[in-house]
């Protein structure tokens, strides 16, 4: 055995020596050696160092490098290479300048004028111009499949004059800037020679702080610092994405210190262990999807608001988040909008319902339900009994489903657990073929759309046919509909906020769903071990602001 060890160590050492000229990162099993190397390079210079970040990503998910890619593709790396016109800061909930310096509305919000960033250049040396913007948005127009937010349903045209780009929409389009913040701009001079519909962009060129350098199958992607980045050259030499097939393996590497951070992957059960490590930090911010247990309002019993309210109150959300997610996420509010919507969030409504089992049982009894000898509530001889779908192949989801089902049983409701794959869950939700269904619902970074697509009665359908939006609950409330109608024609932000608050109040009263937690960003990282310079209060770890400031420890 000893011989083996030595022989292999020699092989590994040779391998490192041979590659010595290539980069500063050592063999992944030898973290000590790596930090030494970093330090030697560090002396004398202010720059240097390698950011190693991990993610749960498979080889297949990196086969398509087009920023227009639809779901399934791993997209976090775009943040290093590509930029949008405007940047949506999920930590502060603010829009920030990116490839556009500023934007301006016309009176009725049908025309948005953006001043382009003149400092930005493509990583191959070409200038960033309005042509790139026009090209990008025309790709969306010509390929509706890439236009995930159906922007061109509302847009009239996009035109340019020098360094000014104007978006014209058919009607007022208040949330256009938020949508713009989701679209990465691609270089026209490279893409125009390709068919955007089938181009997989194997050598990505962006305007961001890091350049895609090389891909090692199933193992890692190496990014080099882009010296001429318009916000300033990154202080690091390289960033390396380490790929892991499972959250468990990624977490293991993080806890061993083989990587400096992850793009959000961490096995939640390991959070306590991680936070107990030296220099370990966790950045948490709300994200654009909410986990909840959907209730089908077309179920006769679930149509009763008292039943829904009692169910919501029977769920100990705090314990769900601490035991199921180890406090690594933020709650889903009963009023739906997460904190990233800033002032638009109705905090009062969000906290209006809380865990109280006795009160919940009282509500049921007041509504005429009686507990049978089996401990199940019933009214008119009909027991409160529901099926409960949750995702198969997802241990955490199943564990949480188990907790919620237990609470509902304690309340006095009979639950029949059922399992389905993620794809089936989507279909069951869409077609309303469920009583209770545990899944997440995604929404755009725009409060109007977030409320409209999920709660407008026009976004739902009878059970049995698919919904046009994400109103999987079959929730229909005339007041909400008319408020949304009103909001769609308004352009004054204060007025809009007021309406959003009202809608959230109604949602909280109606107890439309059983809230779980927000699909939050939670980025574990070590500050001060190998790297430092992160500012987690102002921007996500994977924002350009952080990426250019992260540097090796002196």
């Amino acid at each position, binding site marked *: 055995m000893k011989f*083996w*060890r030595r022989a*292999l160590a020699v*092989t*590994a050492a040779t*391998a*490192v020596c*041979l*590659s010595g000229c*290539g*980069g500063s*990162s*050592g*063999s*992944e099993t030898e973290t000590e050696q790596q930090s030494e190397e970093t330090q030697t390079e560090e002396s004398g210079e202010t720059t240097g160092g390698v950011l190693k970040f991990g993610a749960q990503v*498979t*080889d*297949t*998910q990196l*086969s*398509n490098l087009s920023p227009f*890619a*639809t779901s*399934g593709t791993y997209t976090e790396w775009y943040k290093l290479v590509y930029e949008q016109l405007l940047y949506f800061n999920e930590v502060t909930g603010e829009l920030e300048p990116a490839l556009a310096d500023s934007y301006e509305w016309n009176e009725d919000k049908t025309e948005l004028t953006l001043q382009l960033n003149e400092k930005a250049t493509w990583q191959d040396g070409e200038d960033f111009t309005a042509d790139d913007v026009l090209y990008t948005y025309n790709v969306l127009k010509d390929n509706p*499949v890439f236009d*995930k937010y*159906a922007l061109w349903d509302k847009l009239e045209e996009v035109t340019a004059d020098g360094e000014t780009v104007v978006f014209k929409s058919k009607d007022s389009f208040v949330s256009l800037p938020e949508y713009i913040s989701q679209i990465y701009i691609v270089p026209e001079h490279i893409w125009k020679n390709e068919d955007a519909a*089938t*181009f997989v962009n194997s050598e990505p060129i962006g305007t961001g702080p890091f350049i895609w350098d*090389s891909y*090692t*199958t*199933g*193992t890692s992607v190496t990014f080099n610092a882009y010296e001429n980045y318009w916000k300033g050259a990154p202080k690091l030499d390289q960033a390396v994405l*380490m*790929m892991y*097939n*499972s959250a468990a*393996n990624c977490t293991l*590497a993080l806890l*061993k210190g083989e990587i400096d951070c992850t793009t959000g992957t961490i096995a939640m059960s390991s959070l306590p262990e991680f936070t107990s490590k030296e220099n370990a930090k966790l950045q948490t911010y709300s994200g654009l999807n909410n986990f909840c247990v959907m209730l089908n309002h077309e179920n006769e019993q679930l149509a009763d608001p008292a039943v829904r309210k009692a169910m919501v109150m029977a769920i100990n959300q705090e314990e769900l988040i601490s035991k199921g997610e180890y406090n690594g996420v933020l709650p889903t509010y009963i009023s739906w909008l997460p904190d990233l919507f800033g002032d638009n969030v109705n905090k009062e409504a969000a906290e209006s319902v809380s865990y109280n089992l006795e009160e919940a049982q009282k509500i049921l009894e007041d509504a005429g339900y009686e507990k049978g000898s089996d401990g199940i509530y019933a009214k008119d001889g009909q027991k409160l009994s529901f099926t409960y779908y949750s995702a198969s*192949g997802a241990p955490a989801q199943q564990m949480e489903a188990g907790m919620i089902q237990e609470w509902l049983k304690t309340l006095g409701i009979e639950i029949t657990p059922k399992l*389905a*794959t993620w*794809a*089936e*869950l*989507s*279909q069951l939700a*869409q077609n309303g073929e469920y009583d209770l269904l545990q899944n997440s*619902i*995604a929404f755009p970074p725009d409060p109007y*759309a977030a409320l409209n*697509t999920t709660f407008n009665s026009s976004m739902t359908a009878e059970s049995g046919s*698919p*919904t*046009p*939006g*994400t109103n*999987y609950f079959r929730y229909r409330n005339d007041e909400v509909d008319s408020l949304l109608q009103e909001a769609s024609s308004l352009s004054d932000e204060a007025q809009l906020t007021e309406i959003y608050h009202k809608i959230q109040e109604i949602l909280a009263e109606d107890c439309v769903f059983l809230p779980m937690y927000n699909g939050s960003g939670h980025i574990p990282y070590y500050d001060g071990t190998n790297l430092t310079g992160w500012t987690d209060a102002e921007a996500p770890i994977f924002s350009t602001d952080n990426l250019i400031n992260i540097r090796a420890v002196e």
Partner: protein
Amino acid sequence: MRGFSLKYVIKRFISAVFTLWIALTINFLLPRCMGGDPAEYLASQSAMGSLEYAELMKQQFGLDKSIFEQYILYLKELLHGNLGVSYMNFPTPVKDIILEAIPWTLLIVITSILISFALAWFLGTLSALKKGSFFDNAVVGTSFYIQSIPYFWVGMLIVMAFGYYLEWFPMGHAQDAAVTGGFLAQAGDIAYHAFLPVLSMVIVSLAGRMIMMRSNILQVFSEDYIVLAQAKGLKKGKILTKYALRNALLPSFTGLMLSLGQAVGGAIATELVFSYPGIGLTTMNAILSHDYPLIQGCFAIIAVSVVTLNFLADLIYPLIDPRVSLS
């Protein structure tokens, strides 16, 4: 009797093609039998569940066509070697994804199969020869135990021991990006990374194959003609090499040909535990995300290679076993 008759070869060939066609048809139907519509799933993931967007995706994928049209299109494209475009990684061709993934799986699967077969033949024969001895009992007992161990558990324990605690080997991945030196350095690095996955696969598959080999040899020894040969006074070594070994090899030879296809499926757990890239995990993820073309592509590749190997086995079979005629 010996040698190929053209008629036999043609017959085998036609039946191989037929098998392949049925298998490919099943490949086409299987994913479509699963619940859950990929277009709606994609829409719910990326476009806020918009029904219009789902329709658009369906058109893009050709899922709005009748199932019969889809089937004809699928066969036609397949004949041209075109495996279609992945839904989840649209618009990446399935072929590219598979070509990227399959060498890694083949590397660890073939290496481990060869090693385990060689060891199994050797140990199995030795064990059979020394039947009843301490060596035999020890080998058989251990094999039984190991054979009953879950595949992935061995992997987990190996990662824990050699990767996590001892740090002799990397805990995952197929190679190190930092190794950019010459061919030798890279090959060494790849071998270094493949060591643990291969070790786990050898350990688990060796036991079963060894027992098979041992009982095959023992059975051949009991055959009348061997007993006769022995009675005639043939030397033990000669009996072993001339009759027993060859006849005992027969079942495990067919096994060798076929284990490739199944091993790819078995590689799923290994790839998961070792963070190793490969076709097993690609297939698994494709199934879970209802990526029809990718599922079909993976299955088609496996089906074609297994049918080919099977065809070859059918041709060689009669050459090894004198008892089976070519007719």
